[in-house]
């Protein structure tokens, strides 16, 4: 008899006893009963003696008492992990949050913080998902999370459709007389990620705490978009140059796949090229550089030149496929990314720890402690989660183990 069958037979016997069995099931049970000593076995396990005996054992098992013990043990184990974490309420515009963070770290580190168990933290700290806000040219704000699969705006020039996968722009009439383009802005908050298809077919994945400004229709000789934060571009080939402007540098391309990260609260700009060719220029256009596939350029605001190295592009683009991918990355950068995704604040008790490095991959839909535990196993840090009792913000605090 296969073990799997045992569970099935149990169900049949239960149903026959409680007279809830169907005819077909009864036939099946009868077949089983006719085999070997099954009938005898059946009578035996259903005997009053056996059932009462089991009932006594159940009583002795003291389910509720033991469950409380188990619960205590689990809580203790969680406590041993010593974690601190602070979760920020989702603010509408992540960019604003980012500006606050540096100042508020000091404030929230005061005595308001109470340490919370991992379990409590995990119930409140959830990975991000697809959410974003679109601001139309006339200032109308549209919450994209609640409007799935709808055409959210349409005029003679363009229709904007919110699909499950993101936002799609379609040019309605390419011969429509060109006028001054209307600009839309897509904001993705902490814990969000969003995909958008621009009117020229270019696909953009916008990472957490990022915004992208673009025209409803590309007019003129160039296609220009403005980025704050991180985005992955798959630019549709065209004679018109596609330009990504950030506050630090710009990227000019004809048709390629590349990643750009330029957060306002970070001092560096980085760009990674997956295929094709791109031209980078710093803000004053004093420095330009051309990247080849698998090259990664960094520009630091106080440094004179772009730094270029060959990389595994997967490290820099895994985020758009729902993964964290770190290769010898500094903890400061890793935790900044985690903070954006899980919407928590990060605090290094010892600033030296920011320079520890970590290599590893994790799916972004894992709970926050998965990656934190992974990091703690391979580096000399431990973490704690705390919650500000007044604001209900969570903070991850990293210290020496």
């Amino acid at each position: 008899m296969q073990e799997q069958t045992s569970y099935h037979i149990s169900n049949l016997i239960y149903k026959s006893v409680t007279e809830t069995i169907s005819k077909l099931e009864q036939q099946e049970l009868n077949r089983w009963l006719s085999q070997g000593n099954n009938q005898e076995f059946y009578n035996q396990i259903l005997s009053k003696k056996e059932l009462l005996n089991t009932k006594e054992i159940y009583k002795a098992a003291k389910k509720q008492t033991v469950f409380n013990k188990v619960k205590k043990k689990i809580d203790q184990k969680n406590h041993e992990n010593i974690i601190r974490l602070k979760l920020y309420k989702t603010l509408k515009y992540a960019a604003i949050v980012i500006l606050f963070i540096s100042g508020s770290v000091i404030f929230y580190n005061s005595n308001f913080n109470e340490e919370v168990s991992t379990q409590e933290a995990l119930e409140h700290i959830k990975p991000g998902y697809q959410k974003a806000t679109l601001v139309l040219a006339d200032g109308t704000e549209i919450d994209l999370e609640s409007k799935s699969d709808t055409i959210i705006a349409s005029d003679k020039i363009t229709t904007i459709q919110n699909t499950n996968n993101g936002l799609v722009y379609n040019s309605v009439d390419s011969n429509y007389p060109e006028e001054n383009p209307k600009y839309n802005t897509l904001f993705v908050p902490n814990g969000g990620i969003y995909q958008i298809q621009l009117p020229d077919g270019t696909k953009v994945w916008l990472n957490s705490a990022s915004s992208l400004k673009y025209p409803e229709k590309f007019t003129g000789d160039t296609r220009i978009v403005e980025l704050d934060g991180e985005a992955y571009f798959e630019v549709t080939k065209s004679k018109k140059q596609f330009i990504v402007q950030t506050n630090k540098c710009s990227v000019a391309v004809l048709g390629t796949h590349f990643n750009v990260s330029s957060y306002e609260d970070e001092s560096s700009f980085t760009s990674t090229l997956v295929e094709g060719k791109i031209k980078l220029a710093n803000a004053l256009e004093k420095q330009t550089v051309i990247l080849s596939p698998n090259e990664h350029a960094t520009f630091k605001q106080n440094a004179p030149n772009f730094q270029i190295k060959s990389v595994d592009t997967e490290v820099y683009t895994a985020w758009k496929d729902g993964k964290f991918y770190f290769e010898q990355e500094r903890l400061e950068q890793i935790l900044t990314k985690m903070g954006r995704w899980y919407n928590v604040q990060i605090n290094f008790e010892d600033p030296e720890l920011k320079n520890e490095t970590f290599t590893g991959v994790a799916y972004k839909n894992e709970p926050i402690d998965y990656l934190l535990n992974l990091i703690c196993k391979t580096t000399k840090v431990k973490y704690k989660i705390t919650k500000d009792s007044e604001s209900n913000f969570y903070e991850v605090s990293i210290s020496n183990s």
Partner: protein
Amino acid sequence: MSLNFENLIHNLKEGDSQAYKVLFDTFYESLYAFAFHYVKDHYAAEEIVVNIMLTIWEKRRTLDPNKNIKSYLYTSVKNASFDYLKKRNKTTSLNLETKDLTFTNFEQRIIKEETHRLILQALESLPKKCRQVFEMCCIENLKYKEVAETLNISINTVKSQRARAIEILKMQLKEEHLFLFILNNITIKN
């Protein structure tokens, strides 16, 4: 209790303590009885099952919806019980006499525990009067008249309470069906 498949697994994986409690409440007693059958010691049986339940919590993220959670639970309890016996027999004398040889077969043992679990949990869920009548009719196999006399009620009351019990259990079965399906389908990788 309304449960749906995706939610329970999802919640358990995410660390939802409520989903964990459902699992514990459903299986703790029968696993305890299963362990007790082998180890014949209340403390040892409790320790064995508690450890396995703790492992479930720790490994919750690796729960695989495509495998059988019951199978994982019973097999783990059996293995842990045997380990316990091996250790104990090293320190005391080898005493196989303590083993109950009535159900030596693992599969039969599981049928017994699972059947008892289902019946006892079903009884537990019935209203008190219903439960008494149903227990006497269906489990002790007493005649309506005997039940009526014992409980000092009319034969018609016995019949109607019995019918009511079956009705309740049928309703539950619709949910239980879903529930069993859920539990059948959660298990642990490795």
